[in-house]
């Protein structure tokens, strides 16, 4: 097994400073955050430009070129509901350091994102969700099958579809947490890659609690076979946990300085 793939989540329109920088095409805050994430061990950077309906294509192109020229063709996850923006981003994307990730398809309105990934030899995150949150794992796995078949029909390799069980918030959906973990195990048993917005579990919790919850969940999820997550790499506790789990799983070879690399 390869190392756990950390996708840095901090370049997102949900952060006001980044939203402003995207709108104003101001490189500085974006590059600063990108560097922080890469220094902390992010492999991919998620570029979430939001719906970006008016100028999505132009913005995504700008962001991809900005990040890849500054950081040696860093691999990126293109994250927007604007399909044209994803296509535009991919048209200027350099894959020397890894295929682009399309974030994301689902089993309802966004299933054709898989077609887009297939046509562009990209990785696609496949959210096992239809309309509304799946009620149980039977439903999640049905979506998983639908998404897998769609991707394969379009000529994708199964390994390029990263299944997302949709991590749910503990405050309100505590009873669903083990379901999600079991779902990851099912993906893993099928030999599938998986990812997701893991820190959603700790949404609404006090700031000092979140790294603890996220670390505990990532360890449990990695035990179940999770192969990637979209997280904040600048959460030191979380990154230390991921690196330690990578050692215990044999994904990477131990050296005394393993936390520093």
């Amino acid at each position: 097994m390869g190392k756990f793939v950390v996708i840095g989540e901090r370049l997102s329109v949900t952060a006001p400073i980044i939203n402003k920088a995207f709108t104003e095409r101001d490189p500085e805050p974006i590059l600063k955050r990108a560097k922080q994430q890469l220094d902390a061990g992010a492999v991919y950077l998620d570029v979430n430009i939001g719906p970006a309906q008016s100028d999505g294509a132009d913005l995504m192109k700008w962001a991809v070129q900005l990040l890849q020229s500054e950081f040696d063709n860093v691999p990126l996850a293109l994250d927007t509901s604007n399909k044209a923006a994803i296509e535009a981003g991919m048209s200027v994307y350099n894959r020397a350091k890894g295929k682009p990730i399309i974030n994301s398809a689902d089993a309802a309105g966004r299933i054709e994102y898989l077609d887009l990934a297939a046509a562009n030899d990209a990785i696609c995150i496949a959210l096992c969700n239809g309309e509304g949150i799946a009620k149980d794992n039977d439903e999640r796995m049905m979506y998983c099958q639908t998404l897998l078949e769609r991707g394969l029909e379009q000529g994708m390799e199964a390994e390029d579809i990263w299944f997302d069980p949709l991590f749910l918030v503990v405050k309100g959906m505590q009873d669903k947490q083990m379901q999600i973990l079991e779902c990851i195990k099912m993906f893993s048993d099928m030999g599938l890659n998986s990812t997701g917005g893991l820190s959603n579990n700790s949404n609404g919790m006090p700031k000092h609690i979140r790294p603890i919850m996220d670390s505990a969940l990532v360890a449990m999820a990695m035990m179940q076979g999770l192969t990637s997550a979209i997280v904040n790499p600048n959460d030191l506790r979380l990154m230390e946990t991921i690196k330690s789990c990578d050692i215990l799983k044999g994904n990477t070879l131990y050296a005394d300085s393993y936390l520093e690399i």
Partner: protein
Amino acid sequence: MPFTAKSGKFNASIRSLTIGIGDKAITLGGECVLPFYSFDAAIENAPKVGIEITDCGMAAEPESVQKYYEGCTSVTDMAKRAAEFDGVDFLSLRLEGGDPNGLNKSIEELIRIVKDVAAAVDLPLVVCGCKSEKKDEELLSKAAEVLNGKNALLLAAKEENYKTVGAAGLACKQVVGAESSVDINLAKQLNVLLTQSGVDPQAIAMNIGSAAAGYGFEYVISTMDRIKAAALSQGDAALQMPIITPVACEVWSVKEVIASESDIPEWGSAKERGIDMEVETATAVLFSGSDAVILKHPESVATISKLIKELV
């Protein structure tokens, strides 16, 4: 159903590393496949073969090796002769006379030899320390200084002295060998530490340790296999340094090689035993991922060199 061969080409590759200067310079590493899997992807740099002499000259050589250096009166003479043997890619000078528990030669005396040898041959040079990590700090640092501009390999920085030896390599632009005694975690750790101390990962070679076949050798092989696997299949950048394996110093001291024919006649020719052991050990480490081996007997060198040429 048609058979589709799966390529064993990895997305990661071993770093390529140049030792020496000019026409004779050699490049180790660069491959993105398992050892000798040239059918999966081209192996640009075939493994290289070095020949070893020591500061102790003829006196330290086994009888069957001495013959090849007949007429040599100094280490420099031997170096010149060694450079002419068939299949030699580089020269390794082992400063074993510096061993404080042995001849304990002074650093000045040893450095004079290093200087003379470097002036006499244009082959890429590997300088191996004595058996004391402490003494090697000064010895290899001085060697790095006098070899300025030669892009030589200092063998080696160890856990105990990597700071000094690494700094010497860095300051004098030499290649640094990182030596771990068959300890895979330490092999990685030393590369990390050397890199953190400023040595360019492109200027590091690993000696992950060796043994003569039969002397804990399976552990050497499994360590080497796992290092290559981590470097290539896991893309572990801290292990993508080429591996150089000194074989001679392990082989020529075991009883199967040094026992005389009169003591154990049933073991047959002492000369053949030595060459056999050296060739067998070298072959095995090459097939486990060594990018270079250091041998002593000219016949072993010629044999291994031919083997490599036939396969790559």
